[in-house]
């Protein structure tokens, strides 16, 4: 059996591991756009911060997996079971996994091709940022999402002056509610971050040697910067699937075995659109742990071992200086949509917890500090069962499995 995996991220790697664990003889080929073998992508932020060395990111490959790097698919021919690549290869398969991930969204500003203006998605990009670090003093970060936040945090830890341009009043507005968001913003500002709300870059200006020197904002003001990071979200990489018979919405539509609409073609990771357990609708949750899970499930099914993926949840664990934050599910539900919110905090201890319910089901949770039990809340959200105790009991920072279920296993 020939397995072809498009993408060398965690979804592709977990699929390769799952296939190898059940089919020792199968032929597995992995096609990766980057020059690197699989690595732990989220750790590029720790790399920028200087907390780890590049070697700590390496994940290795299962035995006998052929990795073709620096090449990517340009078209899929499901009828003949082949994939054509940019470098002119034609690869045949019996089972195909599309795990091509997502690409950063561009911005409309002028001169974004100057030196020292980066996306932050790959190890290579962070390596370039680190190379320019000794000459950098002022960093500009566009966007307050996860990537923007991690870039800003990394630069702060490296001792740069950092300014962040965001649309909402606080960073991570997709992940946190206003109260937790304010705590995040305060913690970052306390440590030297400059935050500008509602402003965007109109054009970057160069210093005469091709490097970025300053940025002109939409309101006409000017900001000096020697390095800039664009963190405006990501979009699934699906362009090469046109005409392949694989149905695509925002991401590739998959069923609970991670099958696409085309025969013997599977999809997993940031490129796949499955079902969100908290939102109760189709959704792309482009996060690493879900990509890992989806890859494993896809790999098992590709190897003929039936496995089911129940659905995904957005979630994040973030450490900001001495503050810990976890969020999961629907933390900011639409107003007047019948959601109930229970929250409590202790300013002295610096703790805060917010829970969102839909009827008697928990659908979202945000915790600031004392995050050890966050997984219990995540499991409750993922389980989609009525909460078996009074709702306010879940606010206890030591919420305990025993408190939730009598005779818990």
């Amino acid at each position, binding site marked *: 059996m020939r397995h072809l995996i498009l993408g060398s991220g965690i979804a592709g790697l977990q699929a390769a591991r799952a296939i190898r664990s059940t089919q020792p003889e199968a032929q597995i080929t992995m096609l990766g756009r980057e020059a690197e073998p699989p690595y732990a992508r989220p750790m590029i932020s720790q790399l920028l911060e200087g907390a780890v060395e590049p070697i700590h990111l390496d994940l290795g490959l299962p035995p006998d997996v052929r990795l073709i790097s620096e090449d990517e698919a340009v078209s899929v021919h499901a009828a003949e079971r082949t994939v054509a690549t940019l470098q002119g290869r034609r690869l045949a398969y019996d089972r195909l996994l599309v795990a091509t991930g997502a690409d950063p969204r561009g911005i409309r500003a002028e001169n974004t091709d100057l030196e020292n203006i980066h996306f932050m998605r790959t190890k290579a990009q962070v390596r370039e940022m680190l190379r320019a670090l000794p000459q950098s003093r002022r960093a500009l970060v566009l966007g307050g999402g996860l990537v923007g936040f991690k870039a800003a945090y990394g630069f702060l830890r490296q001792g740069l002056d950092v300014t962040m341009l965001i649309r909402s009043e606080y960073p991570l507005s997709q992940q946190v509610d206003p109260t937790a968001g304010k705590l995040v913003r305060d913690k970052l500002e306390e440590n030297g971050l400059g935050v500008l709300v509602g402003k965007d870059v109109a054009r970057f200006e160069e210093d005469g040697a091709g490097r970025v020197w300053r940025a002109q904002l939409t309101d006409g003001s000017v900001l000096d910067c020697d390095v800039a990071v664009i963190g405006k979200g990501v979009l699934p990489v699906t362009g090469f699937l046109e005409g392949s018979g694989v149905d695509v919405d925002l991401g590739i539509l998959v069923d609970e075995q991670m099958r696409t609409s085309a025969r013997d073609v599977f999809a997993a990771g940031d490129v796949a659109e499955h079902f969100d357990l908290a939102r109760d609708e189709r959704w792309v949750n482009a996060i690493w742990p879900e990509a890992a899970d989806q890859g494993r499930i896809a790999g098992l099914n590709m190897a003929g071992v039936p496995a089911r993926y129940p659905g995904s949840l957005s979630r994040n*664990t973030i450490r900001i200086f001495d503050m810990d934050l976890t969020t999961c599910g629907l933390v900011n539900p639409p107003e007047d949509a019948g959601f109930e919110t229970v929250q409590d905090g202790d300013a002295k201890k610096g703790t805060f917890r917010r829970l969102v319910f839909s009827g008697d089901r928990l659908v979202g949770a945000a915790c600031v500090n004392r995050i050890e039990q966050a997984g219990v809340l995540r499991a409750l959200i993922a389980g989609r069962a009525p909460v078996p105790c009074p709702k306010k009991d879940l606010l206890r920072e030591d919420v305990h499995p025993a408190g939730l279920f009598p005779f818990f296993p």
Partner: protein
Amino acid sequence: MRQVVVHPERCVGCMQCMAACAAAHSQSGFLAAAIRENPLPAPRVHVGSGRYGEGFPNRCRHCDPAPCMTACLPGAIYRDRILNTVLIDPSRCINCASCAMACPFGVIRYHRDPWVSPNRAVAVKCDNCVHRQTQGLIPACAEVCKSGALTFEEPEGAMKRRTDEMARRTAGYVEQERIGEEAPGFMLLRQLKKRAIQLTE
């Protein structure tokens, strides 16, 4: 293979397992000396209380597949196949707490630990007392438990006892008031605690 089996109906919440666990994972290995160590040894089993004051020793289940293992960014969490134990390599752990979000039982903690990482906070959890088992000893929590809430035995045997008890109950051989006889006295204690809390509510 023998495993630590939890019998929650027998837990009285005395927390001796926590003290024994911390001592077993201290530099000295003895409780009296362990309490003077820096960093202070911390337990890896956590006795919590339920809605009505029921004790419950919460301990790593060593799941297979383990969600913490899939979620670990640097690949620091692995399975020891011989002792069927999920372990954390402290030298690879970056203390990112991704595993906190993954563990449905909330059994992972983050701190300096005299046993594995005295100078840097890392993720710490139950290791089934691998070091004791290799010396022919049983896990410290099961050794110290006086009420039989933590036993070290073949899971199949424990499962069969539980199935038999359930079968006797549902078949109606046991009169209502004798339910819980497997754990005599414990049911009464639980009922008293529950009634006391319900009265104050």
